[in-house]
């Protein structure tokens, strides 16, 4: 039994942590969020060149450093602690995930671009009517000579304003909610007919509504097998969910730590509010939530390479537990901070907001509880 990180993994963590400590303090992050572009392209370049972390989770054959999901976990947790905006999840975890698992002919070239920091990816999977059913697609790709014609509307594509490419799910056959007939495409954002409407998100990020209007795709835009993309989508979304939960753990750590610090210095009725037993027990419960969340992130990350059912069960279990932790710890962090917790000025509220978004990302707690029940009880339920 060993929960220790390898030397390489520890190095990745330390490199990221020290970069963020120097260059991603809360005031800097506030400026990034308020800027026109909404992210720091020069930081992204630094992630690629100076830190080399964009390649940490790719095998050496693909031009990476030979790591995997644990590296993503480590990096995402650090990003959670600093509320990093830049699109690691969409580009490396999701975009890279599709490249790794699809047998896509151009995968090596795309990964090369990801590792170099020149290719950035946003995942266009959700649709206005589909909620958390990834097969519920009105977006279509029809065969057109050697290529495809893409039409549809994708909802809340996180990181789209920073992306050079989209990974898009579309129906190449079957009816709207069928599990077969789903295909995955890699789409250059600059193609004619790709229309985006950008907007901020409540947690300080940027997203877009993305419309595809008769977009002509080359034949090699298809990633994976035609019409058989859903299992691939499920796998990559599970990996992305696990990574987002690691980010959630980073957020939880800061919520907990910030609340302890505040409670120790805030005085009411002549003593620190941390002296009140009712708040002590609350902070103990927050700590328990945090520790269990760390455990569940490890569990889910370790099981990402197991069978589809085992992987899905582990990820959904982690999502339920950590989703609830984010709500409990976040709400109590605000409550214990009192009025100060309600202000935009303190970082704590921004962690709460990011935590709230992570809670609903890739499916709500209810969605994952239902999925877990389905996998755990099957038809017997």
């Amino acid at each position, binding site marked *: 039994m060993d929960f220790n990180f390898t030397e390489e993994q520890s190095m990745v963590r330390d490199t990221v942590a020290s970069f963020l400590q120097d260059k991603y303090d809360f005031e800097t992050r506030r400026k990034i969020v308020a800027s026109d572009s909404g992210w720091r392209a020069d930081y992204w370049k630094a992630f690629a060149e100076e830190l080399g972390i964009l390649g940490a989770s790719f095998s050496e054959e693909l031009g990476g450093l030979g790591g995997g999901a644990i590296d993503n976990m480590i990096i995402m947790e650090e990003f959670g602690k600093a509320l990093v905006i830049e699109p690691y999840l969409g580009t490396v975890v999701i975009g890279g995930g599709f490249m790794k698992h699809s047998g896509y002919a151009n995968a090596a070239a795309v990964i090369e671009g990801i590792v170099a920091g020149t290719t950035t990816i946003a995942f266009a999977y959700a649709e*206005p009517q589909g909620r958390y059913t990834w097969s519920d697609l009105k977006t279509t790709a029809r065969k057109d000579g050697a290529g495809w014609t893409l039409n549809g509307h994708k909802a809340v594509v996180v990181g789209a304003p920073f992306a050079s490419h989209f990974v898009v799910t579309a129906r190449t056959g079957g009816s709207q909610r069928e599990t077969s007939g789903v295909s995955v495409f890699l789409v250059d954002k600059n193609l004619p007919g790709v229309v985006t409407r950008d907007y901020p998100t409540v947690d300080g990020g940027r997203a877009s509504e993305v419309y595809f209007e008769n977009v002509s795709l080359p034949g090699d835009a298809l990633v994976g097998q035609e019409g058989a993309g859903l299992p691939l989508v499920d796998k990559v979304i599970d990996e992305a969910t696990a990574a987002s939960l690691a980010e959630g753990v980073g957020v939880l750590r800061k919520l907990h730590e910030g609340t302890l610090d505040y409670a120790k210095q805030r005085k009411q009725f002549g003593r620190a509010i941390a002296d009140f037993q009712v708040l002590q027990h609350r902070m103990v419960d927050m700590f328990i939530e945090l520790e269990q969340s760390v455990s569940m992130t490890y569990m889910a990350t370790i099981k990402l390479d197991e069978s589809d059912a085992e992987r899905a069960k582990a990820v959904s279990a982690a999502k339920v537990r950590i989703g609830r932790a984010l709500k409990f710890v976040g709400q109590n962090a605000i409550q214990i901070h009192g009025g100060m917790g309600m202000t935009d000025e303190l970082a704590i509220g921004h962690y709460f*907001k990011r935590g*709230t978004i992570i809670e609903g990302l890739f499916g709500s707690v209810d969605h994952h509880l239902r999925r877990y029940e389905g996998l755990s009880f099957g038809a017997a339920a």
Partner: protein
Amino acid sequence: MNLDFSPEDLAFRDEVRAFIAQNYPEGLRERQEEGEEMSKEDFLSWHRTLAQKGWVAPAWPEKYGGPGWTSVQRYIWSEETARADCVPILPFGINMVGPVIYTFGTPEQKERFLPPTLSGEIWWSQGYSEPGAGSDLASLKTKAERFTGDDGKDYYLVNGQKTWTTLAQHGDWIFCLVRTDPNAKIQEGISFLLIDMKSSGVTVRPIITLGGEHEVNEVWLENVKVPVENRIFDENKGWTCAKFLLAHERSGIAGVARSKRGIERIRQIARTELSDEGDALIRDPMFKRKIAELEIDLAALEYTELRTLAGEAAGKGPGPESSVLKIKGTEIQQRITELALEAAGHYGAPYFRGFPKDGDNAHPIGPDFAHRAAPTYFNVRKTSIYGGSNEIQRNIIAKMVLGL
């Protein structure tokens, strides 16, 4: 025991409904329903309509301009205004300082302040909290020192800082607790002052909150000259007014009628939003269960409030039981916003504060309610903090009810 409305009460209800239908503008109703931020004029226009009708201060005695309603009629009023998504009447003048003035004020003070409070000419702000005095209100530090002015009149020189002052950016007057005797015991030596916010030395600075709203402010008081005649009740006895006001503040805080409307709204939303199964969200067993649990908890709150009301009608003032209403009422308000955010799904994330902008025809994307769901969820976290945090309310129950 009889909880049915009498024929007179039912007739009153019809009268109220008809009045709202004829006088409450549809545009305001829609914006209130969507949870949009209200402007000063939004608040004031409905306030003035009600003031003209004599209905703006349901709890005030008739001789000061109240409508003379029974507690059942007041209950019906709050139900009906919530049902119709009426803009709330801001509590600072009507529910807080007004009752303090007609209870503790001099005849001159009543004459000077009550009519413009009713008509909406004075926009009141509440100057209770300070950076170091939140739940521990009595530890406030703003000081008021007496002096005689060049004109031979007596004044206080006020220095200090108030915070969390709701909508003070629109304020005309602020009622403040100030320390007039620094050597007295902590709850003594406090006085209740009315301060004209146009006075020199008053500065209002915005505090932006989690949902991006400018709803609260810091109010700085630097060498502000306040005539002694603006003090309500005796010098150093302001804590009596403060406690009286807090009891009034808490009695309206359960928000049952508005929560009922909130749950109805969640039901409407869940009828049109889709579940994972592609069916209406309201048929999703898990979502349905949460609505059901909320409704049951709200029923428990409502009947607890009715019992409190009945007690008040029988002559019992609002006691520490109002803390039960505050705790459960605010928890329910918060859960309603959680459900709205859940219902929004992906469309809970976009942030469209201030849309549509001047000269911009763009509208928020997603379902109508969704772009306000997250900001409202964040904003409503305040309800378990303000008005005496829910932890403090539990302390009150422990001490005053359970004798612990």
